């Protein structure tokens, strides 16, 4: 055991100097990662909300397409969908002017399906009496949704939505496969030149982790805020 520990060549596992020197390049990649991640979070939430509302509709021409969409996106790998967008769609004559846009569109559309399910179950967990009392006060469907139901559903949806956000951050690494110069792509670039994959991937992993820690921090802050009206217990 001790011999095994001694014979590890630590400098091959992690070279702090290389990590430090490649940091500027990795942080450039991180900017792209964050750009994709943050816009995908926003778009997937908005699209997810509309999908959720469509899925809950009593009209078949709303709920059927919504169900189909959600089923397809949940049932296909994100990477495959990115390939279809990036390599397949140009055949139809539509060209994304950058791989970044393709990545944002793909990731947003894919995660919207998960958002939709989280939002739907959160909305459904708001008691029916809330809808009824709002209706008896002449509030419309959308007014009730916006002012009464969504604020309450947000509290319930916060932890699972955070999970989706974390998955989005990590999912952006798939964009490297369609030539987006994000964090993982940058790390692989350096790894290819220096033949020190370990150092580069460990550094990249630590940076992803850091981003996720920040997101977790925001979740905790928001949870405190949304729980403030619950005084008992």
């Amino acid at each position: 055991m001790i011999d095994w520990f001694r014979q590890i060549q630590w400098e091959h596992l992690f070279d702090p100097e290389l990590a430090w020197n490649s940091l500027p390049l990795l942080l450039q990649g991180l900017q792209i990662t964050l750009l994709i991640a943050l816009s995908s979070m926003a778009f997937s939430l908005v699209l997810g909300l509309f999908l959720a509302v469509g899925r809950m509709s009593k009209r078949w021409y709303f709920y059927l397409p919504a169900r189909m969409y959600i089923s397809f996106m949940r049932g296909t790998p994100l990477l495959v969908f990115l390939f279809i967008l990036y390599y397949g769609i140009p055949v139809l004559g539509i060209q994304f002017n950058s791989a970044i846009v393709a990545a944002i569109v793909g990731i947003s559309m894919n995660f919207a399906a998960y958002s939709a399910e989280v939002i739907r179950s959160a909305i459904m967990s708001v008691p029916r009496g809330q809808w009824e009392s709002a209706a008896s006060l002449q509030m419309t469907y959308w007014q009730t949704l916006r002012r009464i139901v969504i604020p309450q559903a947000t509290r319930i949806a916060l932890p699972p939505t955070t999970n989706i956000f974390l998955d989005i951050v990590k999912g952006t690494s798939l964009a490297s496969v369609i030539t987006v110069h994000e964090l993982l792509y940058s790390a692989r670039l350096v790894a290819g030149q220096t033949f020190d994959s370990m150092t580069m991937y460990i550094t990249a992993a630590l940076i992803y982790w850091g981003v996720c820690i920040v997101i977790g921090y925001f979740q905790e802050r928001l949870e405190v805020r949304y729980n403030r009206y619950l005084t008992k217990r």
Partner: protein
Amino acid sequence: MITVEKLKKVYDDTTVLKSIDFTVKKGEVVCLVGPSGSGKTTLLRCLNLLEVPEEGTVTIGKKTVDFGGKKLSKKDTNELRAYSGMVFQGFHLFPHKTVIENIIEAPLVVQGRDKKELVAEGEELLQKVGMLEHKDKYPDALSGGQQQRAAIARALMMKPEVMLFDEPTSALDPQTVGEVLRVIEDLAKEGQTMVIVTHEMNFARRVSNQVLFMDGGYIVEKGEPEDVLVSPKEKRTREFLQLIKE
């Protein structure tokens, strides 16, 4: 103020309201009594259009809706609803809003009125129902009686011609029933038109001008409270009153 004619409501395969007729005059307080499952809640919800009846007509204020033929339009729904305010057995205050925010919410969003003005008006109303000191609390921090008084104020903020109460004290601890009934009695003295579903027979006798006794989807007997609740003509009314006395 209210005229209901031949009202019928069907759930799946059971006809809950078979044929309901009654009228309520302006300033009148009507208590709706009857055994569990007789359709009292359903009737109230039909007046507020939380349920849509299958047949019959409802007139409240200047608005008449005929449920016979085509699908009920949003416009008709809104116009009829504007005449009534509803108070639920389970309060249904908005938990993420304070008491004052709860009561100004609907006039703020629906009528687009000025917030400052509404807060002033809301505080006056809260004073009336004895809730002013709690105006900045969240519903979760209030007792049932306090929540129900806030819910009454919330409905009143829309200045409805008619107030509908569905067993407003049934979910309350016995010691807080009185404070809610007192608020309703004050409203009665001010001439507020009200329809109240209740099991509090003494309260019904004190406050109402008319009592409707419902059973099996019909109004079996109606009249002055002393007649219906003290010396009823119908056998079923007598049986019911006997039952709740025990």
